[in-house]
């Protein structure tokens, strides 16, 4: 018997014409691992919430949902709460209590399980998830990845039969995200748990999924095995924005119109290329003449750091140790690096939030200390923080924007002109009257960027700009940054997103061991790295070592042609 069955399910939010979920029918069998993907705002979250009765939103619901053959509405409270587990996006907000052990026990307390039983189940679960090492800790001391693992574990102690997860890894760094997905895979493989997962990061989940559902504007477009999705999505829906979000091997496969099985993993992708395409004859670096490595003159530099040392407190270890960084005017410079390596701290030092205890920082040739109060932030430097929610203070985006006018001393007409221009540039006109918290992650990001642009900076610092946004929003953001570069704005961004950095940057560098090392153009940076490089490069490096993006690989494949069989 299918564990969840939905029949012709539709849902409309109150006061809206359009259906958020539009006649969706599907079945999930016990033990299946199902991934739902789609653009943000396509109704994925609404669909998931409808499946979890306690969270189902207000509005008109048509059609039926069955859980193990019973209508969801007719389930008794205890079964509905315990057997359907739900993990949300934000790791922070789901934590209820102050201690890890209490958090694990919270669900069981609600179920009224006696203490000895709770003790056993919590102990068992903590060991399974490897939580025992931080079992006694306070929840506020955990990292994002640990918090999300705790959220998962505290659902699992209730022994659910199906686990529903709404973008659980979007706020995590790549390593924590991969760990989390692996844990899910383990649960599915070893316990036979049914999993329904909404994800942006498809590279890791496609190979382990049994079924993939593609949603678009509330409708279920496709529902099949990943391999079939890979070939069908392209055939049926050319230029669908979802194509951008697929794993690199699938994207390359689709763009090449090859007649072969659709590759899902890097390994399959490599085999696919070897089987079908000619190797590059004489390997040539695409940069024919090596760029002259001249020391840039001081006037050419937007940001210049010389031997910067920083620590938060005297007794704590150094976070930055002798950082040298030269960002040229008008370029996009990416700093990549692991989590907690100090990238965000570096930005806070450049933007003057924190002060280095040794070394010198020059912004546009002028020492940072010589900028008088606030002058640095007017027409010079703007920092877009990791969490765009911290940018907004007012009840609508427009009001927040107007406030900037006051600070910058713009006239009323000038301000309105500027707002209109920037809103047009970012394509956010319809967001202006909304409350900032009502926007989706990608929209918040754009609105926050708009506020920064009103400061008319010459240099823009971005902290993890791709965190928690989907592939389509990433492509939009790339377009925006490209335009800003054309206007002559220098952009310095720190990110873990290798693919994004490869596509956008003029130069990349790695932040490691408290220093910025190995700065280079993206092509030589990524083609010289073996592990820390894009999926497309890992897949094609045995044939085209200098191809770093999917587009590069596709172009080279076309150039050298198919193998004649």
């Amino acid at each position, binding site marked *: 018997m299918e564990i969840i069955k939905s029949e012709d399910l539709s849902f409309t939010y109150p006061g809206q014409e359009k259906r958020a979920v539009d006649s969706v029918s599907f079945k999930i069998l016990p033990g299946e691992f199902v991934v739902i993907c789609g653009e943000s705002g396509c109704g994925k979250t609404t669909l998931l919430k409808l499946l979890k009765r306690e969270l189902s939103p207000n509005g008109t619901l048509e059609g039926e949902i069955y859980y193990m053959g019973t209508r969801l509405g007719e389930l008794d409270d205890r079964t509905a709460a315990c057997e359907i587990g739900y993990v949300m996006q934000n790791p922070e907000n789901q934590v209820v209590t102050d201690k890890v052990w209490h958090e694990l026990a919270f669900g069981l307390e609600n179920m009224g399980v006696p203490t000895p039983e709770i003790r056993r189940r919590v102990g068992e679960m903590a060991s399974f998830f490897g939580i025992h090492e931080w079992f006694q800790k306070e929840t506020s001391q955990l990292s994002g990845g640990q918090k999300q693992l705790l959220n998962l574990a505290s659902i699992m102690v*209730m022994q659910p039969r199906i686990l529903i997860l709404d973008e659980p890894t979007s706020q995590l760094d790549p390593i924590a995200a991969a760990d989390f997905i692996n844990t899910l895979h383990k649960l599915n493989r070893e316990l036979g748990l049914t999993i329904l997962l909404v994800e942006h990061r498809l590279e890791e989940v496609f190979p382990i999924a049994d079924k993939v559902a593609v949603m678009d504007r509330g409708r279920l477009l496709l529902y099949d095995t990943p391999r079939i999705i890979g070939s069908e999505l392209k055939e049926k829906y050319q230029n669908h924005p979802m194509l951008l979000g697929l794993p690199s091997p699938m994207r390359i496969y689709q763009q090449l119109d090859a007649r072969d099985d659709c590759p899902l993993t890097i390994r399959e992708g490599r085999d696919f290329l070897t089987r079908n395409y000619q190797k590059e004859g004489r390997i040539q670096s695409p940069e024919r003449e090596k760029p002259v490595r001249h020391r840039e003159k001081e006037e050419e530099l937007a940001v210049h750091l010389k031997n910067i040392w920083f620590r938060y407190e005297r007794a704590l270890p150094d976070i930055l140790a002798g950082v040298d960084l030269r960002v040229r005017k008008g370029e996009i410079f990416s700093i990549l690096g692991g989590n907690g390596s100090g990238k965000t701290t570096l930005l806070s030092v450049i933007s003057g939030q924190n002060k280095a205890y040794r070394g010198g920082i020059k912004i546009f040739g002028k020492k940072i200390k010589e900028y008088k109060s606030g002058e640095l932030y007017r027409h010079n430097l703007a920092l877009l923080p990791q969490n765009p929610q911290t940018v907004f203070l007012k009840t609508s985006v427009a009001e927040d924007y107007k406030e900037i006018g006051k600070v910058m001393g713009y006239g009323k007409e000038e301000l309105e002109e500027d707002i209109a221009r920037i809103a047009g540039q970012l394509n956010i006109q319809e967001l202006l009257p909304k409350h900032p918290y009502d926007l989706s992650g990608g929209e918040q990001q754009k609105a926050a960027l708009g506020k920064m642009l009103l400061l008319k900076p010459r240099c823009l610092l971005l902290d993890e700009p791709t965190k928690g946004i989907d592939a389509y929003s990433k492509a939009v953001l790339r377009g925006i940054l490209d335009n800003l570069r054309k206007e002559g704005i220098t952009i310095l961004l720190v990110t873990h997103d290798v693919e994004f950095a490869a596509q956008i940057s003029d130069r990349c560098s790695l932040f490691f061991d408290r220093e910025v090392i190995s700065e280079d153009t993206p092509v030589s940076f990524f083609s010289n790295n073996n592990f820390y490089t894009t999926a497309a490069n890992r897949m094609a490096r045995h044939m085209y070592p200098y191809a770093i993006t999917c587009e590069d690989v596709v172009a080279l494949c076309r150039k050298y042609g198919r193998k004649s069989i």
Partner: protein
Amino acid sequence: MDHFSSYHPSVLLVYYVIVLLLTMFTVHPVLLVCSLLGGILFFAATNPLKALGKNLIFYLFLFFLLALTNPIFNHRGETPLFFMNDNPVTLEAILYGAGVSVMLIGIMFWCKCYNQVMTSDKFVYLFGKAIPKLSLVLSMALRFIPVFKSQMKKISQVQKTMGLYTSDSLTDRVIGSIRTLSALLTWCLENSIETADSMKARGYGLKGRTNFSIFCFRMDDGILLAALGAFLCMSGVGYQQNVFEFYYYPSVSPIPTGAGAYLQYSIILVMMLFPSILEIKGRIQWKLLRAKI
């Protein structure tokens, strides 16, 4: 640190209540000295020497201050030592001041250790037994405080880099913090909806909620509790026999002596020193164990 505090929270609470009540409601010098000794030793056993030294210096100063202030304002007592502005400074008043300051300092040291022994989760656990809802609310509040703090810092830093209200003038700083606070409130409300969802999703509100704790009541806890009960009975007997009777005014009464009294004193001493004995014993045992390897 972990030898005494590993006892069950309820036993720890009983112990603390007895110690504090005994110290606060007596002026008997032997009792007070025992309590002070116990407090200082326990503090010494659980803190680095440097902290102990600092505290001792501070409290020594406090001791003299209190002991000397009392006779200046209080002129009761039979044995004037000298006259100050025509007011007698009496021996009894000085002794009384000394006695009271020993009591105060003893309580201070016990309270310092209390914070280390009775951590927030133990407190929540104890009071959760009586009022289950309150314990959950307390636990949620304790989670919320650090989250609130870090978000506040983030918001104010971001606002600073946008150049909003950042000059050093007072008005700017006040307006800046008000704005941060209001943004923080919106943020809290917005995000607590998700927390509420997470609670609902895990079945909060179902009938028959239980309270889980990681503390279990072991044999040792029972023994200590029984010992504390026996101690209370003994003290009751001592009270009946007027062993604990002591007064400063009009003249200092003699400290009761005799076999019964000595027995009482030694029991109190053992009871006051119990946590520190436990700590020191634990350390010696550890050293011995290590030495045998």
